[in-house]
């Protein structure tokens, strides 16, 4: 029985993904759980696995194609299945018509499925490049913002960042009129002088070699930039800081690690404590959406992982229900997958708070930018020796500073302060985490 394989949704906010590689070619058989294709989003490269043994009868998109989530990407059959009339099969599955539309890479020569005629050159399409998308259906591909050559030049001449301009052309392309509009908006608050009105062209082009080199943005770098910019612009951050005594935390860690088969980190304990704090203060286990504050039942926590490819924030599920050692293993596993570029769709979804830790670099304290759509991020500093006052006397102590960044839209200051107090209490009495 032939069936359609569709583009899976890789992360919550992605409507498209790139089919980066077919791991099974046309007429290739696969076993259950074999990877069939690699699919990539801004955040992750994910293997699409077979749910049962079968055969790829026909791939419908070329490697590199940007595909809408839910659109057909291949026709699968039973192992060894042969198809005499592929076209009829495609028609019966209702996918023939979309074949071309979902392969943007072929848009320079999309062909009419019936005649093979190049649609691109047909007069009824004005010879333009392929079937037209609605201007509204704008979606940057691979993090790239489409803009016309003229729009780019005008923006550059005016010192305007093209990324910030809203495109109204085909596929959301930024056109001259969009740049003109953006420039008009920029200039309207005051009366520009005539000098300023005339866009100045640089008298000479910037030399290609002037003591620097341009490293092209990776997809992840662009995504990080875009999301964090968005976060800082849209989520009003406020910050709470607490310094906690860490002796008990270190002692507990040493005790647990006394078992040679176990190795937990301070960070594992912090994540566990965050999970527990979220259970105590469930109003913190939320995210902001345009219509409502969404409160989650389970506590999912993201952990920031630095990788060669950039910063990743995989999510650990239901932290509250995991033992410290199980949590440690789970964190280790997602961190490894992140470093290997093998994060799964699941690994990236959900979470209301992230934990980021630069303590291993000796950083005493820092404030982090919230990873949207989460409501908070906890920045964890190093455990350090400090003089502390104990019963009126100054003694040597071990302390750790944590800084909570909070999105003020769903969370008020008092709630966040309460949560932080709970967290501090748990960190200073970590045995409660084992209860």
């Amino acid at each position, binding site marked *: 029985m032939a069936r359609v394989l569709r583009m899976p949704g890789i992360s919550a906010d992605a409507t498209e993904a790139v089919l980066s590689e077919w791991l099974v070619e046309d007429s290739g058989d696969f076993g259950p759980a074999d990877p069939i294709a690699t699919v990539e989003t801004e955040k992750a490269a994910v293997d699409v696995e077979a749910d049962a043994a079968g055969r790829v009868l026909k791939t419908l998109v070329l490697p590199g194609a940007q595909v809408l989530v839910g659109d057909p990407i291949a026709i699968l059959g039973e192992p060894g299945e042969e198809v005499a009339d592929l076209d009829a099969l495609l028609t019966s599955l209702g996918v023939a018509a979309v074949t071309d539309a979902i392969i943007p890479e072929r848009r320079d020569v999309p062909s009419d499925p019936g*005649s093979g*005629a*190049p649609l691109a*050159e*047909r*007069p*009824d*399409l*004005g*010879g*333009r*490049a392929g079937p*037209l998308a609605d*201007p509204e259906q704008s979606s940057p591909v691979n993090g790239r913002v489409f803009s*016309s*050559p*003229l*729009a*780019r*030049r005008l923006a550059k001449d005016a010192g305007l960042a093209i990324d910030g301009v809203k495109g*109204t*052309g*085909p596929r959301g392309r930024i*056109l*001259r009129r969009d740049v003109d509009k953006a420039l008009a908006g920029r200039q309207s608050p005051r009366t520009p002088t005539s000098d300023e009105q005339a866009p100045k062209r640089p008298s000479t082009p910037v030399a290609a070699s002037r003591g620097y080199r341009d490293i092209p943005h990776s997809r992840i770098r662009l995504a990080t930039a875009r999301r964090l910019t968005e976060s800082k612009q849209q989520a009003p951050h406020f910050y709470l800081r607490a310094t906690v005594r860490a002796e008990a935390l270190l002692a507990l860690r040493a005790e647990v690690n006394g078992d040679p088969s176990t190795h937990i980190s301070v960070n594992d304990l912090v994540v566990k404590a965050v999970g527990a704090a979220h259970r105590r203060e469930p109003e913190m286990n939320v995210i902001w959406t345009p219509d409502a504050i969404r409160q989650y039942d389970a506590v999912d926590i993201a952990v920031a992982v630095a990788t060669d490819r950039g910063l990743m924030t995989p999510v650990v599920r239901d932290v509250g229900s995991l033992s410290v050692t199980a949590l440690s293993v789970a964190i280790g596993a997602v961190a490894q997958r992140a470093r290997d570029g093998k994060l799964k769709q699941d690994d990236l979804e959900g979470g209301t708070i992230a934990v980021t830790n630069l303590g291993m670099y000796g950083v005493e304290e820092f404030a982090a930018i919230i990873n949207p759509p989460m409501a908070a991020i906890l920045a964890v500093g190093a455990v350090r020796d400090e003089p502390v006052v104990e019963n009126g006397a100054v003694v040597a102590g071990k302390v750790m500073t944590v800084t909570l960044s909070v999105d003020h839209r769903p969370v008020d200051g008092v709630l966040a302060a309460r949560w932080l107090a709970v967290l501090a209490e748990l960190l200073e009495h970590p045995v409660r985490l084992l209860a």
Partner: protein
Amino acid sequence: MPEHRPMSPASPWVEIVVTDDDWDAADPDLLRTIYAQLVWVRTFEQYVLDLAGAGLIHGPAHSSIGQEAGAVGSVLALTSEDSVNGSHRGHHQFLAKALHHVERKGLDPLAAPSDDVREVLVRTLAEICGLDRGWSHGRGGSMHLQWKEAGAMGTNAIVGGGVPQAAGFAWSHRQAGTDAVSVTYFGDGATNIGSTLESMNLASAWGLPVCFFIENNHYAVSTSVDEATGEPRLAARGLGFSIAAWSVDGMDPLAVHLAMTEAVEYMRRGGGPTVVEADTYRFFHQNGGFAGSAFGYREKAEERAWRERDPLTQTAAQLQRLGILTTQECELAISNATGVMDEIGAALLEADPAGKPGQRRIKPAEWPDPAWVDFGVRGDLAELDDAPMVVDESAVAVEETTFIDAVAAVMGRRMDTDPGIVVMGEDVHRLNGGTNGATRGLPARFPGRVLGTPISENAFVGLAGGIALDGRFTPVVEFMYADFMWVAADQLFNQIGKARHMYGGSNGVPLVLRSKVAMGTGYGSQHSMDPAGVLATSAGWRIVAPSTPYDYVGLMNTALRCQDPVVVLEHVDLYTSSGLGPVDDWDYCLPVGRAAVRRAGSDLTVLTYLAMTRYVLEAAEGHQVDAEVVDLRWLDRASIDWATIEASLTKTNQVLIAEQGAVGTSYGGWLADEIQRRYFDLLDAPVWRVTGGVASPSISKVLERAAIAQTSEVVAALDEIARY
């Protein structure tokens, strides 16, 4: 049982057989010249093979060793006024003609070569090596040897490709009132190709003084003449066209000379074309210095038998028998010539500093300048300097004119003022001005200058190409349908389009091709194309596309003065249309490379031409997209009006290229490519295009309409553009 009446060809066919008596009767000076030429050609060719063996010749060296007698014997029956052209194996033909031109009174085999002879040898060797000193600055090489001054009009690498042009040289000789003749040399392989047979027919129909000189060396590369034809007696080709034919032993230079003398005399007294078949043999393979037997297609015994009849040894033996030269003198002539070739080679070659001892290389200074690679693809238009060029286009008084009347009127005016213009094509001399009236009134006014041709496009276009290469007359060729370009493709693209550049860049090819675009007339898939896109791929052509009577007159006047081949596109839709044309000025010229803005607009630049201009203007009228409509007028890469395009794009920032014809052969592709690179920063949208469909237009009226872009297709494109 019906009666069987024997029939016979209308033309004679004889074999010339020479005996010692003929040698006895021959002028000793002629025989000395024959021997001297044979020696020069042989030693030259041997030297070329030596260079080829040393890797100093780039490309093939088609050796003529063994075949010298045919060229030498025949050329000595000609004068410098007579023209020759030849085949890929043409060193001997070219050398014989050039040597005869510089030493008209004859050559002495024992005399030191004159400076002129040395010049011929060094420039020919340089050309074969691809060097700047060559006749064509090394562009032509071994297979394209041309020295027009000597009447050597160019050898040719396309089998049969030069034959139609030779008919053109013959036509020019006769039209100029001379008794000069044209000789076209080709091999047995070329007797089976259409251009040769078409040219025989055309030359016979028109009684042209052209000799089809067949060097039957029995092998077309490795295919023997017996395999390639049912009539291997190739002189018999002439009989089918009522052409007088001579067969002769091509290893005997005197026999060839006697046969050729008869043929030339026959042509000079107006007998029409001739065929001379010289039975000969190339001692080596197709190219290089190895015998054909080494490649397995012929026997060593056969090669030995032919070598025993080596024209040099045969001639030497006769000269010795006649007491004209001694054995030693014959050998001395060869060793002297060999020494001269070594000296000539030393002028071009030097020891290779990076090579083994004895290894040579081309002297670096001898190479042509690589920067010169595209020089002379087309001319510099200096011929237009004194043309009555209209810059202010309101300077010409205009009135409403029917397009087709302007076509005939301007040609009549030009033929009046320029007796060199000749019009040819299918039915142009009948039907009251050809199939569309374009030559109306001209046959009666200009007898002998409006020539109805047989239906053989390759032959009559090639003939016109020959007239253009000759340069004394300006041919105007009409194609009844543009699609016939494919039939004449070799002559249009390989010959006429490349001739100027390939032969050095300085000799013009003044030819006008009036190509009728007949889409929309119900003539179907094979008669409805727009040739502009294909023609634009050819480097040598200029293309004009007039859309009004006024433009037609001015552009045709410019085209007729231009020393490049110019195709004037004529759309049959326009013939019956009317528009502004000149009142009484039929002499003004429109400048090369000047487009016309037919409608000013601010939103979109539409580039269009010919009959599509009108449809674009219709579509633009009243449309919300304010289109600026540019009628390109000049379409080829060298003549297109970039200034107007850029000015318009600077204003509108987007461009639509609109044309009527099928997408596959469409014109706009190269233009879109050029625009996106030249004007990337001016573009706010991709280059838009309107073309016809994928298929050629069909006969059925509705299908034909659907295949051709007109107003509604442009409107659809404008609507699409308006969405953004």
